[in-house]
């Protein structure tokens, strides 16, 4: 085959050309072909030879020349266009391309081209190396890495993402839904990932989600997944990098810390004691729920000054005390405690004790930490105890007064009795005609003094019962006349011969009273009326009913009571200054006061010195039937 001009053109080609006839004899080779195969012969010399012979001659050029021969035979058997790259021992690569030329459906010519692709291949190798290098790195990174196209199809997955190579390869070009179908698993996870992927694509921002993956051992694995969009130079999303980091450990630690925090927080909030932290200006940093409850607040707002604005319902004195204590603690870096009273909107009073101390920590710096406790019950108990102690003291004083009264008021009658007995003894030891009469006077003395002493003792006993709170109120229905008759016994007549002037209004019949108790009261007033009006007009008792009150008015015309002493009269053992020469214990009016108060009544008195005294006892009608 003489190609003439074409031959010259073919020789300029950088790739080698080999043309065979239908008997596989070489018809033509160009220069480049001969160069690649290192043939020194001219083209004409090779005509009629077989290509595989050339390979055999120069087999040393090829890494495995048999491969080239086998390839040659196979291609001829098939007679189909084909290309393949071969490596040569000199480090070069060539691409062999085969094209059959048909005429009337019979192959007439076999055209082979051999292109030196060494440069391309080297580049490819470099690129493959780099590719492998990065792939290796990506595979080694302890994070799931996947690269998606805009349709959320996998372009790449690292080994951490999917360990199984087969699955990994399968996933390329597929998406999570395909994977779920492939593995026959629920698509929930795929839906969740798709939603987040779409958000990342729409917002063009990285989206994070936490994936909980149940593992074979039943434990959950938590992966913090990110969809990170990557943009091209026009700002359009090119790919989306998905990467997930196993945060199971972190989450577990976080969970432990959070649980601990929760537990401590619950503990502090469940405490009945208030716990708070304020800065050195008194500004609240933190507090528990009890603080809010104890201080009667709906909530604590920051930044409010703890001891100024928030301590409502606290006296200024207590506020000043608290402020002083806080200042002391912050100045001296020490501690203080105290208590204060707080009143809520319903006027309920609470007693709170506080304990505050200085604290210095890296997180909060210098602060004051404090506790607040409700000590209302203890306070009440203390008050009760103190009251009892003072009651005890009072009783001791009363006892001491009782001893003095007994001493004075009983020793005098005893002296009279003793002297009277001695006188009687003397009289009867020297009888005379007047002996009987004289002796009788002293016997009467004795009887009077014994009665007087008995009376004193009775009164003392009633007062003691009253003071001890043992005197009981026992009311019942009694007719007014029976009650007054009972009282009148001692005053009809009184020992000096005067009679009590009594008047009872007709409209009174049955009354609901404690007759024993009220008798003591009224009798005492009547006795006083007689006692302090010796040689004066007889005292009066008027019983009336007016304005739903049952009134007993006891009026005498005696010595009266000094005006400035009236208020002291109802104190136990008190005696008016002008009454000292009259026998008495100073306990009668205590009985009156108690008896009237037991009936929910009142005692009023009017008095003028040397003119007389008028007592008015009023008992509400509610007790009168």
């Amino acid at each position: 085959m003489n190609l003439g001009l074409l031959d010259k053109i073919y020789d300029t080609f950088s790739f080698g050309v080999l043309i065979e006839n239908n008997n596989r004899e070489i018809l033509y080779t160009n220069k480049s072909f001969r160069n690649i195969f290192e043939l020194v012969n001219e083209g004409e010399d090779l005509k009629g030879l077989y290509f595989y012979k050339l390979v055999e001659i120069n087999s040393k050029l090829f890494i495995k020349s048999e491969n080239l021969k086998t390839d040659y035979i196979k291609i001829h058997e098939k007679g189909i266009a084909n290309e393949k790259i071969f490596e040569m021992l000199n480090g070069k690569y060539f691409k062999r391309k085969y094209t059959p030329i048909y005429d009337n459906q019979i192959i007439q010519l076999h055209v082979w081209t051999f292109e030196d692709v060494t440069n391309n291949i080297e580049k490819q190798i470099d690129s493959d190396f780099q590719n492998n290098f990065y792939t290796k790195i990506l595979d080694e990174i302890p994070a799931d890495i996947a690269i998606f196209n805009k349709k959320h199809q996998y372009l790449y997955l690292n080994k951490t993402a999917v360990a199984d190579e087969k699955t990994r390869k399968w996933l390329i070009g597929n998406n999570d839904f395909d994977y779920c179908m492939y593995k026959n698993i629920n698509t929930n996870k795929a839906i969740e990932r798709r939603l987040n992927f779409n958000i990342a694509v729409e917002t063009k921002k990285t989206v994070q989600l936490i994936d909980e993956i149940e593992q074979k051992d039943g434990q959950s694995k938590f992966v913090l997944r990110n969809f990170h969009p990557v943009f091209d130079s026009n700002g359009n999303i090119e790919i989306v990098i998905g990467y997930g980091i196993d945060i199971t450990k972190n989450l577990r630690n976080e969970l432990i810390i959070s649980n601990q925090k929760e537990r401590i927080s619950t503990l502090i909030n469940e405490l009945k004691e208030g716990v708070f932290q304020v800065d050195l200006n008194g500004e609240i940093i933190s507090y528990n729920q009890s603080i809010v409850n104890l201080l009667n607040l709906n909530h604590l707002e920051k930044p409010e000054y703890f001891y100024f604005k928030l301590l409502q319902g606290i006296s200024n004195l207590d506020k000043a005390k608290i402020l002083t204590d806080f200042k002391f603690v912050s100045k001296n870096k020490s501690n203080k405690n105290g208590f204060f009273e707080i009143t809520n909107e319903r006027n309920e009073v609470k007693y709170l004790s506080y304990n505050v101390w200085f604290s210095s920590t890296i997180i909060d710096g210098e602060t004051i930490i404090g506790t607040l406790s409700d000590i209302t019950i203890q306070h009440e108990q203390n008050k009760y105890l103190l009251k009892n102690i003072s009651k005890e003291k009072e009783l001791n004083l009363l006892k001491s007064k009782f001893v003095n009264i007994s001493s004075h008021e009983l020793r005098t009658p005893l002296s009279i009795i003793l002297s009277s007995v001695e006188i009687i003894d003397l009289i009867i030891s020297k009888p005379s005609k007047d002996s009987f009469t004289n002796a009788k006077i002293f016997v009467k003395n004795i009887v009077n003094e014994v009665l007087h002493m008995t009376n004193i003792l009775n009164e003392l006993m009633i007062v003691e019962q009253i003071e001890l709170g043992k005197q009981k109120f026992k009311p019942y229905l009694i007719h007014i006349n029976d009650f007054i008759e009972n009282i009148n016994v001692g005053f009809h007549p009184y020992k000096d011969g005067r009679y009590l002037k009594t008047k009872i209004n007709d409209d009174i019949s049955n009354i609901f009273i404690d007759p024993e108790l009220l008798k003591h009261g009224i009798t005492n007033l009547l006795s006083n009326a007689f006692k302090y009006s010796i040689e004066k007009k007889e005292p009066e008792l008027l019983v009336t009913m007016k304005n739903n009150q049952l009134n007993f008015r006891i009026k005498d015309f005696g010595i009266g009571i000094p005006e400035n002493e009236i208020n002291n009269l109802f104190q136990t053992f008190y005696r008016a200054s002008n009454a000292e020469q009259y026998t008495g214990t100073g306990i009668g009016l205590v009985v009156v006061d108690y008896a009237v108060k037991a009936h929910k009544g009142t005692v009023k008195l009017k008095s003028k010195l040397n003119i007389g005294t008028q007592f008015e006892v009023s008992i509400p009608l509610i007790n009168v039937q």
Partner: protein
Amino acid sequence: MTKTNNFLVLVIEDDLRLTSVLKTLFEIHDIQAVFAMNGEKSLEIINEMKFDIIICDIVLPDTDGFKILNLLKNKEETKNIPFVFFSAIANPNDIKRGLAMGAADYITKPFLSETLLNKIHSILNLNIKI
């Protein structure tokens, strides 16, 4: 008992029932006695009359026995009159106080007339000896 006693007793006592029996007792024993019911009255009487012995209650309507004793001890004319407290107040502190102030004795109520009379006599005899 002596038939006639030539000494004069002042009794300062506010309780009329008691002075009444004391009067009878002194009468029976032939003792001359004057009775005063309060401090003011007693001082008046002391100024007017000369007493050999004074028997005085402590609780009085206008003053108390200690004050009377104090007044008497501070007056040249009266400081040597034997003074006997005669009281229903029987506590040891008051007795000590009374004696410390110069009282010749302290008689607590109730008393036996024999005790009272013996004390009067012994005090007066002692006084005479001095």
